[in-house]
């Protein structure tokens, strides 16, 4: 079945980030979005540990252990970047000043509920980090996710079965099969990958889908 690579999903997300946006990129796949922003587009990247204007990974040997991102990897600051302490950084998040945050997901519901921090396995210590603050605080919550789990279970559902990260927060889902808006308690398909039928997409989705009148093919470069 046609499906996008992680890099292709990240590329697709990057196209939706406008000039001047303040953007927080979650740990993992969302971090890749930064690689696909057009060179002529100025976007300001926030990292919740107190960086605004985060730049690319430094060249080997130039890493500063005191300049890391939320994923605890060495990064840089661009010109115009600034440092704040954690409480101020989360004031930015909670206060609605981040335009877009991009997060991963275990599950997303048609009402925009997001589950991405804990499973039902209680043997492992749970960890939430900044995900709940980002989910509730960012103006737009974009989710990057595979459409299904590795064993084929749908991740887009009527209702999440895992503990929630935030309720009614997801605005758009970028899966390996489709670009789906979450609005008015519905999944609205805006773009679908080539060679996948509407019916096939419905089969791997755990909730009803509404296909937008102007639904188009989800096209990306080979990545």
């Amino acid at each position, binding site marked *: 079945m046609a499906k996008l690579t992680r890099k292709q999903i990240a590329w697709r997300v990057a196209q939706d980030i406008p000039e001047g946006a303040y953007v927080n990129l979650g740990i993992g796949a969302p971090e890749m979005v930064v690689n696909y922003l057009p060179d002529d587009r100025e976007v300001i990247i926030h990292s919740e540990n107190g960086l605004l204007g985060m730049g690319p990974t430094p060249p080997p040997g130039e890493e500063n252990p005191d300049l890391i991102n939320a994923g*605890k990897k060495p990064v840089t600051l661009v010109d115009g970047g600034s440092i704040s302490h954690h409480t101020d950084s989360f004031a930015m998040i909670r206060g609605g000043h981040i335009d877009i945050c991009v997060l991963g997901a275990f599950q997303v519901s048609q009402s925009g509920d997001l589950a991405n921090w804990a499973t039902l396995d209680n043997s492992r*210590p749970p960890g939430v980090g900044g*995900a709940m603050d980002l989910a509730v605080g960012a103006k737009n919550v974009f989710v990057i996710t595979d459409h299904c789990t590795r064993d084929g279970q749908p991740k887009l559902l009527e209702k999440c079965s895992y503990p929630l990260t935030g309720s009614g927060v997801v605005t758009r889902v970028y899966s390996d099969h489709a670009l789906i808006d979450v609005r008015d308690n519905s999944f609205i398909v805006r773009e679908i990958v080539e060679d996948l039928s509407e019916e096939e997409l419905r089969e791997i989705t755990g909730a009803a889908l509404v296909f937008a009148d102007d639904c188009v093919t989800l096209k990306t470069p080979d990545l």
Partner: protein
Amino acid sequence: MIDKRVYDFDSALDGMTDGATIMSAGFGAAGAPQELLEAVLDRGYRDLVIISNNAGEGERGLIRLLKEKRIAKVVCSFPTSSNSEVTKELYAAGLLELEIVPQGTLSERMRAGGAGIGGFYTPTSVNTPLAEGKEVRTIDGKDYVLEFPLTADFAFIKAREADRWGNLTYNLSARGFGPTMAMAAKATIVQVDRFVELGEIDPEQVITPGIYVDRVMEVEAS
């Protein structure tokens, strides 16, 4: 003359006891007061309650205290680090109590503790398991959870520069939780890269004013 500088770990840790609650700054290894934590380890203190974003990272500081079973409870947002198994093992064995708090709420609760705020309503964690048992209130049509202040006996902080009044600067993202924890603890102990003379730090560039700091000690990274 006011002089908050100390020159050995015994002086830095004056008043430490078994069972103490310690806020430990740092996000991962950046800003982590590893040497102060290890001085606590070396002196045998146990049953500690740690408030920190992570329950350790790498092989230093909190991880060493965890391995030696000195920590009874950790209040944190994200306990496990990619390169340490000890937290998982202790938790699975029932030997470690964890209180998971969303990162922004953790930080805001410490600020409340330091700023005299008795409680605050946050939208973070509404409708999640972390809001269970907490008061939820609708304000202007939006739901909020009531959260209460966090304080501690000690805050351990790593900073870049300190003068004898305890004014601090930090190094880039190692700033982290330091400025907030300094406000919220009864005794704030700071390990710094270097002492500077009073007046050397531009008044506009003091990040933590000395009013929040009790002792500063120059510690070479080890």
